[in-house]
């Protein structure tokens, strides 16, 4: 179509221009993480380093205990993912497949909790966690990180279960499988793609979480990456080349994971009008 060709001439340059503007911080990140200590502090700052300082990649691991922070984020992330899956998948099955009084209400509630802001309850959570003697533990973060994505994940999983034809399950029930057997042996294997989405979402949330870690973790060896990086800055002498290198390394896993679930995520958030 003529119209298509003409609009292409406008769309492509405009797209590139907007992308350059929007991705500017990531350009800054990559440029800075390869700068030498001296280049970082030149005024005015330079866009491209005079030489590429590969040793930043090594130093950030050896001098800044990055391993420890990665390990903390990983423990919290995996723990939260496990707990979240154990809670949200069975609940989603119940909401999607079983008839019980209160089902409608449960679904309504789920959708509302999805929007809930942790900040509102942070003062009570602080007290509750303290009274359970869970301040400054991974356990507190695992529970809370898992919990604040339970609603959304139950919701997404419910949507996924619903796409599986009922006949499959009914056939199994007639063949003498119990409900629990159909659930674990028939539904779960089919629902693996949905399951993966839910697990990835839970992991990303925990990996990026900031508020709970900021409020509930105080000792250095339990700090996740987000807090460790936040503490990097703020000291008057920020070594930006290391901060950006660490930021880059911390971002890679979440970016990869996000791309795997991005379509389903949008569909889950926006509802039926968008297909996952």
């Amino acid at each position, binding site marked *: 179509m003529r*119209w298509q060709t003409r609009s*292409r001439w406008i*769309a492509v340059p*405009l*797209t590139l221009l907007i*992308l350059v503007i*929007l*991705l*500017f*911080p*990531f350009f*800054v*990140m990559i440029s*800075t993480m390869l700068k030498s200590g001296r280049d970082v502090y030149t005024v005015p*700052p330079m866009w491209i380093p005079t030489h590429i300082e590969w040793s930043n990649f090594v130093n950030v691991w050896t001098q800044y205990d990055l391993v420890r922070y990665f390990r903390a984020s990983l423990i919290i992330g995996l723990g939260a993912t496990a707990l979240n899956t*154990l*809670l949200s998948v*069975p*609940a989603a099955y*119940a909401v999607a497949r*079983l*008839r*019980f009084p209160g089902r409608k209400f449960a679904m309504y509630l789920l*959708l*509302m909790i*999805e*929007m809930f802001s942790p900040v*509102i*309850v*942070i*003062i*009570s959570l602080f*007290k*509750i966690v303290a009274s359970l003697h869970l301040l400054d533990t991974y356990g507190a973060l695992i*529970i809370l990180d*898992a*919990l604040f994505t*339970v609603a959304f994940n139950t919701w997404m999983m419910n949507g996924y279960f619903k796409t599986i034809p009922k006949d499959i399950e009914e056939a199994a029930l007639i063949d003498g499988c119990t409900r629990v057997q159909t659930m674990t042996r028939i539904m779960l294997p089919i629902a693996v793609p949905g399951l993966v989405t839910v697990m990835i979402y839970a992991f990303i949330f925990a990996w*990026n979480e*900031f*508020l709970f870690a900021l*409020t509930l973790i105080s000792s250095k060896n339990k700090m996740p990456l*987000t807090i460790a*990086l*936040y503490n990097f*800055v703020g000291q008057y002498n920020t070594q930006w080349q290391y*901060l*950006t290198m660490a*930021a880059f390394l*911390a971002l890679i896993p*979440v*970016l990869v994971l996000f*791309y795997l679930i991005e379509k389903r995520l*949008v569909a889950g*958030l*926006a509802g*039926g*009008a*968008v*297909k996952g």
Partner: protein
Amino acid sequence: MAEESLSLRRRLWNPEARLAYALILPTVAFLAAFMFYPIFYVFVMSFFRTNKLSALTKFVGFGNFIDRLQDKEFWWAVLRSVIWTAIGVSTKFLLGLAIAVLLNVKYRGRKTARMAFIIPWASSVPISALLWKLVYHPDFGLLNRTLSVTGLWPKPPGWLGAPYSAFGACMWVDIWIGIPFFALVFLAGMQAIPQELYESAHMDGAGSVRSFFSITLAGLQELILISTLLSAIWTFNDFNVIYILTRAGPADTTNILITSVYMNAFVDRRFDWAAVQSVITFVILTIVSVIYARFYFRQENA
């Protein structure tokens, strides 16, 4: 009918319902302990004076509410929240829509462009905020360097250091994170609109502007509503960006409702004030969430 003759007990306690309750119970228990009870406790706390360690000391009824509602600083935070959310959401909406339109044009490499546009949303919010802190840096930041060298803005402000520019700078980071969501939702919606509609509109002599309004935007109606509500909630709740960039400073000029809850509690140690603001924020958010849930269900059932 048989269904009506079932006793209430049978309806609540048949094997299927029993299994359902068993499956839901763990989730409900955790939510009750770490979400519903905390909400309840915030309400309780808002009626008491607290000490610096957050212990309840004295029942004061609505005293805390009256205190807060008479405090100018509270109303400033409310006003900032309103401006923050209104400008934030509308800018995200417009830029997201524009990007969706651009991505809906067919050319080679648009899949890659789509991937690239997602990055600000896919990125971790705390890390993005830290990167922006460097970008905005008055001495080493490349933003001001770029602006002044290209002549776009010869004397740019110090961004995070001064009141108005700090608010704008924080708002931009929040907007920047929120644009891709709108772009993706709108793009998906646009691709679901049948091409024939445009063709027949073209035959009828409708120009592309006309088509855009009466076909594209009309087709996106439901999505526009839902995504705007969602974005409004997220924007209103954005604690991380402000806390990391400015810690609600300088001189509280970037303190919106959601950050003031935290600052009241953990900086000023006024847990009672924080509780009051939590309650107020909770009520506002609940109203918006109910609207969102309603529209979501209406659309699902349509």
